[in-house]
């Protein structure tokens, strides 16, 4: 198994999970690198993405696992990012390629950034109030699930959260949250602010994955 670390930013954040799978497969073909395929009339490539990313969320730490066709055995995985980048659309950019890697179940946490935008400027006292909100006893947020909306205390899934003012219009939440079993959608951090501090509800919020982490806090590779 081979692995590539890539970023999804800019226009790329609007690409859905399924479309991204197709884009990556095409990028391999364009680079002249043949992926390993299943047999049969409708062959599909051995590719998988760790932790699907929501449309609209940026990321600097996406991982693609794949296998190459036998004829490509000599290909050096570390050379792939450069070759693939020439074949990828705006906003999808490979950073690192390597063989093997840790098992997916060792990926436990995500470092994320959430930016809360205030068109009229960050309200006075916002940073402190938001900081208190995330450091209380419980923080119940309504989340969508297959069976309709569910109330959920998100604090147990937040390992660490730092609130700061990034510029005159932006509050930055920098957090380490649970990645799997259970996972926390970073958009819920902004939703918590809008729900519990309606006066501080931002005009817009956007999230970005910064790093995938293992249990001991080191980057997952």
């Amino acid at each position: 198994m081979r692995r590539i670390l890539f970023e999804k930013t800019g226009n790329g954040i609007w690409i859905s999970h399924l479309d991204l799978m197709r884009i990556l497969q095409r990028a391999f073909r364009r680079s002249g690198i043949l992926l390993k395929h299943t047999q049969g009339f409708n062959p599909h490539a051995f590719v998988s993405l760790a932790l699907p990313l929501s449309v609209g969320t940026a990321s600097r730490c996406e991982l693609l696992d794949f296998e190459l066709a036998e004829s490509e055995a000599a290909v050096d995985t570390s050379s792939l990012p450069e070759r693939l980048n020439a074949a990828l659309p705006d906003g999808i950019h490979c950073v690192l390629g390597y063989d093997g890697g840790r098992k997916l179940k060792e990926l436990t946490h995500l470092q994320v950034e959430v930016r809360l935008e205030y068109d009229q400027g960050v309200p006075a006292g916002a940073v402190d109030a938001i900081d208190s909100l995330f450091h209380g006893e419980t923080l119940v947020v309504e989340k969508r699930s297959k069976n309709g909306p569910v109330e959920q205390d998100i604090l147990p899934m937040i390992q660490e959260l730092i609130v700061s003012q990034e510029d005159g219009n932006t509050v930055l939440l920098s957090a380490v949250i649970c990645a799997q079993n259970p996972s926390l959608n970073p958009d819920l951090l902004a939703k918590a602010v809008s729900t519990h501090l309606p006066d501080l509800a931002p005009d817009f919020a956007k999230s970005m994955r910064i790093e995938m982490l293992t249990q001991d806090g080191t980057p997952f590779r």
Partner: protein
Amino acid sequence: MTTLLERILPTVQKPARYVGGEYNQIVKDKAQVDVRVAFCFPDTYEIGMSNLGMRILYGVMNNQPDVWCERVFAPWGDMEEQMRKHNLPLWALESHDPVKDFDLIAFTVGYEMSYANILNMLNLAQVPLHAADRHDLKNIVFAGGACMYNPEPLADFIDFFSLGEGEDSTVEILDLYRKAKAEHWTKDQFLLEVSKIEGMYVPSFYEHTYNEDGTLKAITPKNGAPKTVTKRIVHDLDHAYYPTKDIVPSTEIVHDRTNLEVFRGCIRGCRFCQAGFTYRPLRPRSVEVLTRQAKEALEDSGNHEITLSSLSTSDYKQLEELANDLLDYCAPRKINLSLPSLRADNFSRELMEKVQKVRKSGLTFAPEAGTQRLRDAINKNVTEEEVLETCATAFEGGWSSVKLYFMLGLPTETDEDVLGIADLVYKILKTWREKATNRKRGCRISVATAYFVPKPFTPFQWEAQISPEEYTRRQRLLKEHMPAKSVDYKWHESSLSRLEAVLARGDRRLGAVLEHAVLHGAKLDGWDEYFRYDLWLDAFQACGIDPDFYTRERSEDELLPWDTIDVGVRKQFLQKERKAAYASTITPDCRTQCTGCGANLLYPEGPCDA
């Protein structure tokens, strides 16, 4: 801070279609270009990006170093709602600049049901709808495409129409515009000069007057405009531009594959088919060029599927050689080769097996009519024996599903012809029972019937469209007689085809109807989710226009709204073909014998064959 668009995108379906940034999109420095073109496709991204004409002309225009052509598509309803709510004008995908800032606004129009989208897109772009209300050289709106051979319903809104194939003429338009802009011409000056380019139709240069019964009385050219405008064709397809370094969409589109155009024109002459006449004369590409283009396009796009396209691909003389060459390249690379629009009469088992080596695709026939008599009348030269033989071959080869397309309401159709469809379906089922080698999943036959729409430049251009009531009666009659088991029968609703028939043979008085309908919410008529017939009926009523006037039978000596336009095929030929239809007499294909349609005169270097 995020832009307004970025804030809207999370709220709409499939946001990737609104931002551009795809592999191979063309970005230029706007300070370094002289002419900016907003190239609009009047339907969604998924449809528009599947359009070969748009891909060709995008490349042709951007090959001009001082021209930057960008793409614009119709937004889906959720996006339109947000745009209107936030007053966000329609933008082009490459630069995200508003369409109203562009020099030229071009539309490529493939079918009548997108007319409303053209007006709606101009409206969303905040560009005045009426050509007469746009006074400057900026925002000149022009249109072309397969559906623009009767552009009259759009005459109020479009400054000029580019008729026929645009590879050469679009460059001439851009050259003229560049000069006009540099020399600060008025719009009138520009239009006058445009009208002198072959293939350009400036509708405001023609005065239409009417008789008391509503029929056209006269079409009077003004400003020295030619009495008729002849469509343009590309003479040498092997040397014409063809996109092989092409945009690869980042989101799934309808035809998500490499498209190889093997020839233009059609040898068949099916009497209902507009493209069959308007795409003439026949001009092929050579196997060498096609194979090279296929490899280039596949390598550059990374597509894992390629399709051969034309009006009747199995009529390509060197199909076998081409298919073999392509399979040699595709098979080891796991690339799927699909061959659409194969006709029943020469679909060889050998070819089918070769294609099957890579991936099995479905089997599709369009007999169009249920009896031999009616198939002869429409010159669809497919016999029942051929259909059944091909099905037998396919069933023996392991296929078990067949798609069949028919039309109801063809000229001279009787109930016997309608029931002939059900009869043919029974015979195919029987063939399956006798021949199938793969019985596990049973036989699946999909049957679809459409409501016949008479089109300009066909032998049926004078015919009435049968009434919606009569269509529904025939459709129900067929439904009653269709075998229920193993057959999935789908039919078109009458309202959409009724409207299509009105617009197809419409005149410029329909402009008011279009405008009324669009301003009251008509859009995306080709989509069930959005088509609202009531809006159109209201519009007809409000404008005092009877839609039945447009679906009636026309007299052969009546002046037709599209008589200004010359597609190469002569009216006398169409009249002769119409008579042959009444006699159920077939006309041999162009390869057997030249039928003297007249289109070969556009192509003196001939031969007119593929």
